[in-house]
């Protein structure tokens, strides 16, 4: 804000610039999709900003009201396409809550395992593209290499590379075997080494720190009031993680893991660097959870017996409503489903974490420089498929 006061548009001053309206996006390499931000610029300083979303509005909620509960599972994949497993998980838990069934124990452990793997993949994209946003190209290639290994692991059990449709109401689609789990632990060993390299490449990079520290400061109050969740909220110093505080799967209750919280390492709490660093540390925590899952996974069925018939006859939950929240890589994903006893819900509302995280952008940008806008957008790590649904 100081900079803003320094260059106030005083018409009598020596250096006077007309206000410039600048469109960032929808086709812009660093808006992470089809976000459009309209910026009012005074020279290099942003004086006002308006987010314009809806360029990827794909009518998911209307579709949810017209297809059956099972058939909506692949559509949840396509909301947050970087974390399909977590979306499937949230939707399955919602349907299970409506139906009053619970997935078998083994299915719960498999769910936690694949959800954490997908969390790593999602954070890797955030890490790689954030590097590109700020002018570091190399991390992108490193991140995509590790992501490719995760894709291949998940492809082996689910059959698809990105949009898995693996976690379904009542359990998971396929069982996993020991050979696959060995591959996962081999990946974990490898990944921990790579993670150190990432830090050398980007985290400790002086230029990177200069471009992210003390930029885009999101205070705790602003984050809470705007409904920010996930790493964005944790970076502002709120120690809240649904996995620990409201464990929605059994493994999260039993596994040991830490909740990384922003510490203001390079100055201010809740700046871009904190958000980035929370994500980086979450990857390592996910590796910890994965290792414990592999160790403790119990034998048993991977799908609730009574649910197998859902493939032939549509699920018919009793009238009622359910709201389930899950900790996604981007924050708390919630599905609010209202059933009136039919084959499909009458309302299928999604609480998309990116939607709420993005709504804070208009409050972060004014007063910063244009180059920092890119850093701020990247640090929020939005997925437009989820913002617009």
């Amino acid at each position, binding site marked *: 804000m100081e900079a803003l006061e320094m260059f106030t548009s005083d018409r009598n001053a020596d250096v006077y610039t007309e206000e410039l309206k600048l469109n960032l996006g929808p086709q812009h390499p660093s808006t992470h999709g089809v976000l459009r931000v309209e910026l009012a610029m005074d020279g290099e300083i942003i004086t006002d900003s308006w987010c314009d979303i809806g360029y*990827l509005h794909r009518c998911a909620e209307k579709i949810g009201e017209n297809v059956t509960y099972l058939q909506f599972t692949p559509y949840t994949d*396509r909301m947050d396409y970087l974390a399909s497993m977590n979306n499937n998980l949230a939707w399955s838990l919602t349907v299970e809550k409506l139906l009053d069934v619970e997935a078998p124990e083994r299915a719960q452990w498999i769910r936690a395992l694949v959800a954490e793997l997908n969390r790593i993949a999602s954070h890797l*994209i955030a890490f790689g*593209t954030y590097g590109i946003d700020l002018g570091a190209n190399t991390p992108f*290639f490193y991140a995509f290499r590790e992501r490719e290994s995760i894709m291949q692991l998940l492809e082996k059990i689910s059959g698809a590379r990105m949009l898995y449709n693996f976690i379904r109401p009542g359990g998971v689609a396929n069982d996993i075997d020991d050979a696959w789990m060995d591959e996962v632990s081999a990946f974990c060993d490898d990944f921990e080494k790579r993670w150190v390299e990432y830090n050398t490449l980007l985290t400790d990079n002086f230029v990177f720190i200069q471009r992210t520290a003390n930029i885009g400061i999101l205070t705790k109050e602003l984050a809470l009031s705007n409904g920010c969740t996930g790493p964005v909220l944790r970076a502002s110093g709120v120690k809240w993680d649904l996995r620990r505080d409201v464990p929605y799967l059994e493994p999260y209750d039993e596994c040991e893991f830490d909740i990384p919280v922003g510490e203001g390492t390079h100055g201010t709490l809740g700046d871009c660097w904190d958000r980035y660093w929370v994500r980086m540390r979450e990857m390592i925590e996910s590796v910890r959870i994965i290792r414990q899952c592999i160790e403790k996974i119990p034998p048993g069925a991977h799908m609730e017996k009574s649910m197998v018939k859902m493939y032939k006859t549509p699920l018919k939950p009793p009238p009622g409503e359910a709201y389930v929240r899950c900790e996604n890589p981007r924050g708390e994903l919630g599905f609010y489903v209202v059933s009136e006893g039919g084959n499909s819900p009458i309302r299928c509302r999604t609480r998309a974490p990116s939607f709420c995280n993005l709504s804070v952008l208009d409050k972060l940008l004014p007063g910063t420089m244009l180059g920092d806008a890119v850093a701020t957008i990247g640090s929020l790590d939005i997925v437009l498929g989820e913002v617009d649904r």
Partner: protein
Amino acid sequence: MGILNNTLPSNTVTDAVDGVIGWGRKSSIWPMTFGIACCAIEMMAVYAATFDLDRFGAGVPRATPRQSDLIIVPGTVNAKMAVRVKRLYDQMAEPRYVIAMGACVCGGGPYVKWGYNTVKGVHKIIPVDIFVPGCPPRPEALMDGILKLRDKIGMNDVFRRQKETAESMNRSYGHL
């Protein structure tokens, strides 16, 4: 290609010149940095080291339409975005090529029935050269599409006269 476009008869010289031009064009396709939805992530995977589109001379994604030859439309185009996609296409210089990546772009995909807001295939908006269905297509499938596009570019007639090409060129100039 202005005045010379499709005006000369086919003979040894024009064939040879066309061959050289086609080889040049197909070996340096510059795609546009343009991501819409899920398929964009697989497109990024194609640019990354594992698949490395640069082996085909197409690994330099340009951030502006004015410098690019190829627009890969990766992801659902909806009513709000369609106008922008068309504008981006209009800003590209000839010769320009379009790859429709993913089921949504090829023909509506999963959103074809209940999607009140989605365009059922980007070929309703801009002329498409190669369709790559799949949801999302594997990176290999996209590269297969790009290889097919390379073949198509290599066969293009720049100097030789060919009736259909001239007609389609005129059509795309006329209304876009």
